[in-house]
């Protein structure tokens, strides 16, 4: 089956990101295709390139990056939710006159329409809320 995940929680602040990552790994382990993880609401903080969690905590960002690299899972971040929360890529930083950027590659900023397409196109959309 084709799956997509909607993640609404920041790493560490809630357990939602941990649960979503575990679920993503299990979806793939069962032979499904995971098309994308869509980061919305506080979930956009998962893409924070400047986050510096203690070494003895799980490095959630690495988990997402591994999924992208090993299983071609798209990491899509809602641009509107991200900008108001300080997650911004170089192009948007230039547009808004911001001195720096904070979106880790290979996360990409995209519109909410992508979430709707995932919901309609995939067999299952699983939400992890916070």
């Amino acid at each position, binding site marked *: 089956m084709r799956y997509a995940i*909607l993640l609404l929680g920041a790493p560490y602040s809630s357990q939602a990101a941990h649960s979503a990552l575990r679920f993503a790994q299990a979806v793939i382990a069962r032979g499904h295709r995971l098309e994308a993880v869509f980061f919305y*609401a506080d979930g956009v903080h998962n893409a924070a390139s400047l986050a510096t969690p203690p070494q003895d905590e799980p490095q959630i960002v690495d988990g997402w990056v591994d999924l992208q690299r090993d299983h071609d899972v798209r990491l899509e971040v809602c641009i509107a939710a991200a900008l*108001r929360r300080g997650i911004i890529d170089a192009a948007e930083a230039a547009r808004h006159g911001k001195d720096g950027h904070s979106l880790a590659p290979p996360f990409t900023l995209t519109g909410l329409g992508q*979430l709707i*397409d995932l919901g*309609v196109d995939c067999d299952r*959309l699983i*939400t992890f*809320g916070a």
Partner: protein
Amino acid sequence: MTVTTSVDEGAAGELLVILRHGPHSGIALKEGLDAALVAAAFGRRVSLLFMGSGVAALMPGQGKGPLDQKGTLPTLDMLEMYDIDRCYADSASLEALDMSADALVIDVTAVDSGGVAQLMACHSLVMTF
């Protein structure tokens, strides 16, 4: 106020967006409404279900916040323009806030628990915010 258990055929749609957060309480409600508006703009048939504190979004007389926060009323006013005309509210939640489906900022159908379950069944995708 008439409460419906059996939602008619016209209720069937592609996407049901459940709104459970109140207005002026962070942007969870706004971000849920935005998802609904974008889905409608992409040509999807969208229904809304207000539940729990989310029914407070329907309260008449809402205003701006003290720091000039505009709240969600302006967004609700856009639903019609986006052809989102299937709006439901959980009757138990309405009662908990002394609200009547007859006197709200937009037209909604009050549904009881059976109606809520039926809305889940007749939409192919359900998103909770």
